[in-house]
């Protein structure tokens, strides 16, 4: 077998999201002679990123002064904020918490924002490579990270090589920057290998499901921002909605469910669709059409869950590190800031990762997270305690002498019959999509069916035996794209076996996070595969 081809760079960045692109831009601004490449698994930049998104513009002002004269294609100045506590048929308007006041912010499409940032990085000499998935980390003989290995193309489902087989190359770099977003697959390996989480709580996540709608003319109020809590979530499930009015009669909406939920029967996708059928939302959407839809895990562990963000030869930035601010429901400004901070550190240190973790922890990025560190964990004790606790933490600006602990999301499910199932006061839905498969259609997700399954289940016997008995296969419910199905198979003890419809996968990573036996591993499929989001 011939030697694998390699390319060498000073720095390789994994992921062309806000963190990775801000990093690359900043580094080139400071050290134009440094060679930098950014690799991205989606076929075009921005096609696999999904966020609300209302962003704070200050980091963009610092990174690209003058950006306001040449804004990204979707960029609507924030208008009125509303915060609602919903009941099944009505709601109460609550005072808007300070973190959710958006005056001066902008509603954007994060996908469009990244597609707008990438050419600006390229103009500075950054090589941006969409359509190439970083399948593995590679290491030097001394154990330090040496770069990444690009996944092979043209491998058949059974592992044999198809006629167009192209071996992935190795990208070797003095420094590797992981900017994969929440639950990065390479980051996950590195955290384990280097014990990066030894001093932190387990990371926590939520799942956000989003749709972009085109509404009949005159219904939207560009800039209006509405958030809600309450129905359809029961008081022990963390859930809330966002509704952002864009321009051109478009509206972005979504629902976030904490993946620390305990009811094995809970379905995040169904909760989202239920909320859409609340009278106040339904009246807005009826008669409109869906433009695009998708889902993505959100990192919510915050200050106490942040792993060590440096290791020999590599650093973590943005959401793969875990910098999202939960009460603000914003991570983009943190991602941009951490990327710029990393670039500044590396420019000064001669591409040495040492000291980056300390710099990050001493920065305003972490100061912001420290203030709100107890807000999200408070909701474990239910909605009412959570709200009171959030109010206390907000008033005291996080000066409480305690820090609430986080627990791993895979460990929070009750077994069947262990607890009474919450009564779900659900309605008969009338708005599209009818089911998850109809929803996946709007994600325009595409995987060549003849490629190895990119969702590795270590032991499918557990699925057919213990999991049926203990949890009734929650993967068939938590996946927003119906990738996991239990199909009839008489040879199995309970008459069914797991079937993985991996071609439907929208790369949200929920299965990798929530599976109660920790046996599902999400790996990158062939580069360019996956959802093709438009303006999410």
């Amino acid at each position, binding site marked *: 077998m011939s030697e694998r081809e390699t*390319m060498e760079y000073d720095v390789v960045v994994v992921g062309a999201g806000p963190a990775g692109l801000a990093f690359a831009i900043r580094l080139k601004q400071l050290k134009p002679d440094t060679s930098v490449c950014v690799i991205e698994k989606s076929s075009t930049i921005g096609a696999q990123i999904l966020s609300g998104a209302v962003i704070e513009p200050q980091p963009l002002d610092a990174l690209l002064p003058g950006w306001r004269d040449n804004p990204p*294609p979707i960029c609507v100045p924030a208008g009125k904020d509303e915060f609602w506590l919903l009941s099944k048929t009505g709601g109460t308007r609550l005072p808007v918490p300070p973190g959710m006041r958006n005056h001066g912010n902008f509603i954007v499409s994060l996908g469009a924002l990244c597609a707008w940032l990438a050419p600006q990085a390229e103009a500075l000499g950054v*090589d941006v490579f969409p359509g190439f998935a970083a399948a593995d980390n590679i290491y030097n003989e001394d154990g330090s990270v040496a770069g990444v290995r690009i996944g092979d193309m043209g491998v058949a489902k059974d592992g044999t090589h198809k006629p*167009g087989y*192209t071996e992935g190359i190795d990208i070797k770099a003095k420094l590797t920057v992981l900017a994969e977003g929440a639950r990065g697959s390479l980051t996950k390996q590195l955290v384990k290998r280097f014990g990066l989480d030894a001093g932190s709580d387990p990371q926590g996540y939520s799942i956000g499901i989003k749709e972009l709608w085109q509404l009949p003319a005159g219904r939207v109020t560009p800039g209006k921002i509405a958030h809600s809590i309450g129905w359809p979530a029961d008081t022990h499930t963390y859930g809330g909605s966002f509704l952002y009015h864009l321009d051109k009669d478009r509206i972005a909406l979504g629902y976030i469910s904490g993946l620390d939920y305990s009811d094995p029967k809970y379905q995040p996708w169904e909760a989202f669709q239920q909320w859409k059928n609340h009278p106040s939302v339904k009246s807005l959407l009826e008669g409109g059409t869906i*433009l695009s839809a998708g889902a993505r895990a959100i990192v919510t562990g915050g200050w106490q869950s942040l792993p060590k963000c440096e290791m020999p030869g590599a650093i973590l930035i943005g959401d793969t590190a875990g910098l999202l601010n939960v009460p603000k429901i914003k991570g983009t400004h943190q991602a941009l800031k951490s990327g710029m901070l990393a670039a500044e550190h590396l420019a000064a240190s001669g591409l040495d990762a040492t000291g980056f973790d300390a710099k990050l922890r001493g920065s305003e990025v972490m100061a912001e997270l420290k203030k709100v560190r107890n807000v999200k964990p408070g909701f474990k004790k239910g909605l009412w305690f959570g709200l009171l606790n959030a109010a206390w933490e907000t008033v005291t600006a996080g000066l409480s002498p305690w820090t609430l602990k986080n627990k791993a999301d895979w460990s929070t499910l009750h077994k069947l019959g262990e607890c009474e199932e919450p009564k779900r006061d659900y309605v008969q839905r009338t708005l599209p999509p009818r089911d998850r498969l109809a929803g996946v259609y709007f994600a325009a997700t*595409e995987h060549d069916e003849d490629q190895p399954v990119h969702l590795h289940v270590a032991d499918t016997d557990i699925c057919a035996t213990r999991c049926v008995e203990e949890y009734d296969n929650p993967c068939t419910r938590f996946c927003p794209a119906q990738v996991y199905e239990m199909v009839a198979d008489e040879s199995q003890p309970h008459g069914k076996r797991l079937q993985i419809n991996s071609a439907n996968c929208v790369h949200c990573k929920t299965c990798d996070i929530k599976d109660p036996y920790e046996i599902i591993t999400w790996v990158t499929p062939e580069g360019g595969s996956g959802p093709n989001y*438009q303006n999410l």
Partner: protein
Amino acid sequence: MKILVGYKRVVDYNVRIQVKPDGSGVITDGVKLSANPFDDIALEEALRLREKGVAEEVIVVGIGPADLTAHLRNGLAMGANRAIHVTTADAVQPLTAARIFLKLIEKEQPDLVILGKQAIDDDANQTGQMLAAIWDRPQATFASKVEIADGKATVTREVDAGLEVIEAELPAVITTDLRLNEPRFIKLPDIMKAKSKPIDVIEFGSLGVEANDHLKTTHYAAPAKRSKGVMVKDAAELVAALKQKGLL
């Protein structure tokens, strides 16, 4: 031997096409654009002919706005030797495209022009045939196999009745069908190499080609929505329902 390949940029086949609310066109902003799949096949075939030693040079041709450069770089990364970019901000109809190609043929003197049988945006399936006519050279359309020897192309065509094998004297126009080949994956190092390959930029106005505006698009509309289905319990109910609709 020199081969000219048409390389059009279209809305990607995975994208769900949406009509603009005012019906003036389809939404293309924020939408993934990529090479017309039949053009990728055309380029692949040209590259294979070069690899077999039949051709020496493969030139990709794109017609479109200034930002088409990135798309042409993909063609160069796949392996084309160089690119020609005819710049115009307007949509180009098949006859105009054929006239542009004729001008480039006069300049480049290729022995073979390979085009996709159609582009997946307008599905016109006309440019190749029109070009052969105004160039007054043979055409071999819907090719599923191409062999070049002794100044002749032996082309297997996909026709309704099956396969038809024809011989065409070069120079000629070949248009590609789906089964001709499977385009290769682009390799990262080749993207880097493509950055230094030449792209000739030619202003459309400088070619002296008359823009063809015989066709005017008046309106775009999405297909009518399928009406809601009805669930029937059993065959008897189905038969009754069909009878009621006068279908049985």
